[in-house]
């Protein structure tokens, strides 16, 4: 007898125990199919799981401490791994983490492999899924094993082994969180990535920062008392392109985070006031202003001009590459108001995408290229999405505060954006499928704006 793991109603805020001060906003009833790859037991079928946003069904997961196989007697590595994994799975919007106080067994006395522990201990606390694992520290070397179990079917779903140093434990947790999402939803999770954003947390000046999605590894990229805005990543997540007034005029800079150096992107046509890097990292689409007119050009990273994309006497800004690098979405006022257009990256005719609303801007292609998210003004701004070949726009945010600067997660299920819904501007995430709002991902003094979600960090 297989217990359905779907029809449990949880309170609105239950899924976000450690983020309970964060608002979860009503969403409509979309359906998510969990494509569980149920391999072993006879007659097991893929299980359909319905997630309908807050107040509806979330999978209950228990995350047990890691068994100490030597060198982690104070369980500090275990705590770091489990803490990060908890936060990530909460942020995913798919899971409710069962309170560790309810756990019956002691991870240090029980085993972590299939057959070495009692599933009844986890079924009795209504756990759908269970994470167990072990850690061993040998010198500076950490070996960490983590396993995901389906409690109802009493089977192992997935396991990962990680090796690294002690400081790598949170990163291991982020990679395991991505694997948990892949195992339970059929699609890799978005947590082994970085978020770049702009903040005034350091004082009056806008500076570019990065952090992990779960709020760790804060890094300040710029430190000059001017204006630094619009960070965007290349696909290697090694470079950040951003606009700065540090020379007392607007200019675009390409920062190499590894080599810790940067180059200024210049154009023979005028001031570069915005831009984006191509997915292959070789080209930059730049918004270049001259005599009040702003047009788009394709440049090499050295500033050599490959193509002029637009040639109007007005404004053409906010360029964004499609994931295959073949198209550019951008904002133009050629119709009289800011609207979203798409143009071939090699040049050609621009196709207008948006017709409703008198201020549509900041387009961003989804990772599969089929949709474009953007912000649209009706009073304040909200995030919308529209098919990239044209069609009906769909509103994704709810009118709470002003919602701006959509940036897709690499798996395409989430959009980071900035919102004033709680007063100061913060970075939030929305689940595209059901419009559930998650976050904020940032906190502290100042306003946080202009989020940019990187691609997966890779090895």
């Amino acid at each position: 007898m297989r217990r359905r793991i779907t029809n449990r109603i949880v309170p609105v805020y239950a899924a976000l125990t450690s983020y309970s001060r964060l608002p979860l906003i009503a969403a409509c009833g979309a359906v998510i199919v969990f494509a569980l790859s149920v391999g072993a037991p006879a007659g097991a079928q893929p299980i359909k799981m319905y997630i309908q946003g807050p107040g509806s069904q979330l999978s209950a997961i228990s995350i047990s401490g890691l068994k100490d196989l030597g060198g982690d007697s104070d369980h500090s590595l275990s705590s770091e791994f489990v803490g990060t994994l908890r936060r990530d799975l909460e942020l995913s919007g798919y899971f409710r983490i069962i309170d560790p106080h309810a756990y019956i067994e002691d991870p240090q006395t029980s085993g972590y492999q299939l057959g070495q522990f009692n599933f009844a201990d986890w079924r009795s606390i209504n756990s759908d899924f269970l994470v167990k694992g072990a850690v061993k520290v040998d010198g500076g070397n950490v070996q960490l094993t983590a396993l995901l179990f389906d409690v109802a079917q009493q089977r192992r779903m997935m396991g990962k082994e990680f090796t690294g140093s002690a400081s790598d434990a949170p990163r291991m947790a982020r990679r395991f969180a991505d694997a948990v999402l892949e195992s339970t939803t059929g699609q890799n999770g978005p947590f082994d990535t970085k978020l770049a954003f702009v903040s005034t947390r350091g004082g009056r000046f806008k500076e570019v920062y990065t952090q992990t999605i779960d709020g760790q590894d804060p890094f300040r990229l710029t430190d000059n008392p001017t204006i630094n805005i619009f960070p965007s990543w290349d696909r290697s997540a090694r470079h950040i392109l951003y606009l700065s007034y540090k020379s007392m005029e607007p200019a675009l800079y390409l920062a190499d985070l590894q080599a810790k150096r940067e180059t200024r992107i210049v154009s023979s046509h005028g001031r570069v006031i915005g831009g984006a890097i191509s997915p292959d990292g070789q080209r930059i689409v730049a918004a270049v202003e001259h005599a009040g007119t702003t047009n788009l050009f394709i440049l090499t990273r050295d500033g050599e001009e490959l193509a002029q994309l637009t040639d109007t006497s007005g404004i053409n800004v906010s360029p964004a590459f499609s994931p295959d690098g073949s198209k550019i979405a951008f904002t133009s006022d050629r119709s009289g108001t800011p609207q979203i257009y798409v143009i071939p990256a090699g040049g050609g005719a621009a196709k207008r995408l948006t017709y409703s609303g008198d201020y549509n801007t900041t387009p961003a292609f989804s990772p599969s290229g089929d949709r474009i998210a953007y912000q649209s003004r009706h009073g304040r701004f909200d995030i919308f999405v529209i098919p990239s070949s044209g069609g009906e726009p769909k509103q994704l945010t709810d009118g709470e505060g002003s919602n701006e600067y959509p940036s897709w997660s690499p798996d395409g299920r989430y959009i980071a954006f900035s919102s004033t819904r709680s007063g100061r501007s913060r970075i939030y995430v929305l689940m595209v499928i059901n419009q559930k709002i998650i976050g904020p991902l940032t906190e502290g003094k100042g306003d946080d704006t202009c989020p940019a979600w990187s691609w997966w960090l890779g090895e």
Partner: protein
Amino acid sequence: MTRVQRGRGGWVSSSRGMVGARVAVMLCAILVVAGCSSKKAKQVNAPGPASPLGEQNQNGSSLSQFQNGSLGSGANGPLSDIHFGYNDYTIQPQDGDVLRSNAKWLNDHPQSRVQVEGHCDERGSEDYNIALGAKRAQAAKDYLVTLGVSPGRISTISYGKELPICTEQTEDCWAQNRRDHFAVSQ
């Protein structure tokens, strides 16, 4: 309403040339402002950290005023701001007199230079507003040129919505921020 029209073309200068010219203009501005900064200094209400360009630039650009904490303190120099409608860069009829007065001052002070700064209110995206501010700055430059000011004495810059002089979320405040500011360097 006067809609200032511009033609296209003229995108010929090399980038290094343009950057060089701007640097030259900025250096000029610093040197020139140094001469008059002493008598203006008392208008600066809230001195902050010195800007990279030094004390003498404190009545210069809005960005240097923002750096030293004097933005919005009224230390505006000899020329008056003009204002714009929402998401608009046309010169408004009531600002014709302001621009004529600004042009007269510039024509009376032929050694002076001016940088026209385009500014926007907080609504809308940062990048679109930088382009919109560039339109606003260019509109005033073109107007001043029609009034006899040599284009070589007028540079432009856009600060988008980054340097508001009023930070409340009211229409009155937004209207103050939708402005061209004229930073004179002599």
